């Protein structure tokens, strides 16, 4: 069994996440098979594509039910960017999309000077800079870190979600991923 299951939802680039995991000496498998999601030592819900197609794919493959089961069992899940947003109740993206509902909260279109919000920004209270690329933002009572007033991380039970891309955030990102994996 791989150290980490990276949940496949049929769009885009999961290569970078797997490359970062390999860099940290972890094996990974990209899959949407429910049994693998519930049983893996660690699960990452990556951040690529659009909310509607992601949820469609996750529902169709049974990954949504598997993620809910895993969360109920208290096993670790890391959501990255869209992967964090999907864990909330609903998103405004694509005309309104129902999320997985692990964490109470909503996702709305980002209001900022420039959208998409692209680039490196300091995350407080952690102090390091991480790479962001997003047009939507999370709102939840479970926010544990912010960046320029935007939710940068949220945590509830065994789910940790980050708006930034640790797999694209250089040394700071690798260090963050290592910390996450050490909780498995």
């Amino acid at each position: 069994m791989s150290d980490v299951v990276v949940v496949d939802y049929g769009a885009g680039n999961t290569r970078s996440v797997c490359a970062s995991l390999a860099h940290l000496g972890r094996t990974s498998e990209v899959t949407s098979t429910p049994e693998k999601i519930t049983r893996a030592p660690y699960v990452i819900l990556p951040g690529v594509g659009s909310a509607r197609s992601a949820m469609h794919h996750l529902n169709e493959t049974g990954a949504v039910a598997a993620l809910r089961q895993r969360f109920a069992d208290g096993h670790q899940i890391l959501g990255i960017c869209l992967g964090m947003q999907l864990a909330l109740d609903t998103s405004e993206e694509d005309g309104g999309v129902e999320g997985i509902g692990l964490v109470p909260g909503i996702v709305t279109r980002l209001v900022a000077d420039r959208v998409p919000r692209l680039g490196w920004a300091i995350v407080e209270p952690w102090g390091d800079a991480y790479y962001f690329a997003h047009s939507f933002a999370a709102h939840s009572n479970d926010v544990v870190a912010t960046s320029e007033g935007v939710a940068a991380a949220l945590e509830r039970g065994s789910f940790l979600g980050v708006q930034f891309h640790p797999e694209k955030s250089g040394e700071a990102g690798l260090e963050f991923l290592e910390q996450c994996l050490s909780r498995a």
Partner: protein
Amino acid sequence: MPLARLIPCLDVANGRVVKGVSFVGLRDVGDPVELAGFYSDGGADELVLLDIAATPDDVATMTSVITKVADVLEIPFTVGGGVRSVDDAARIIESGADRVSLNSAALANPSLITAIADRYGSQAVVVAIDAGDGVVHTHGGRIATSTETVPWAMEASERGAGEILLTSIRQDGKRTGFDLELTSQVRDAISIPVIASGGAGSAQHIVEALRVADAALIASIVHENPMGLPGLRHEIESLGTKLRPMKERA
């Protein structure tokens, strides 16, 4: 606003870096994978790989380069050159690139911008504009079109582009500073971020560009001295522009 970004641009043809990159500190100066890793370690905030050959024969070679770069890089990178369809974009992104850059294909077929943005999100679509005398140019800046620069930037943004890569043809390769007026005009007209390109010859030039743009594309200034990137970052910061704090490898 996120921190200003420094983005080295590598011109690649047939799997090799072209244009004068100095060999200092590199084992193989022509290897885009080694150079990408080197710039990433030196403090690049992102990279752009431009496939300047982009012939049908070159596709497989470039795809292999993208895959290898994605495996070594822990910063985002954009791939441009020869992106003419959603399938081209899909191949590039699914090989590991974070974003694609569209140029003449977007001009010929603006709906391509929307099609790629719908599939991968706006943040994955950069529209590159080669501008001179108020109009957009194609064919590496050689041919002037009748499309005006600022309205085209606005249209690209409305159609779903997530960033504009704006190159001043007049300044490109001259190393005498960016076209600040052009950059301001474009950035003031849109609400997506803008990468200024063309003219970086000194830290001071980059600082000036970063006052009117969200990022600066740099080429010969780093290629002539790949070891100098950390020093360049330091100089830019000492001139008052805040860049991302680098974290030392543990």
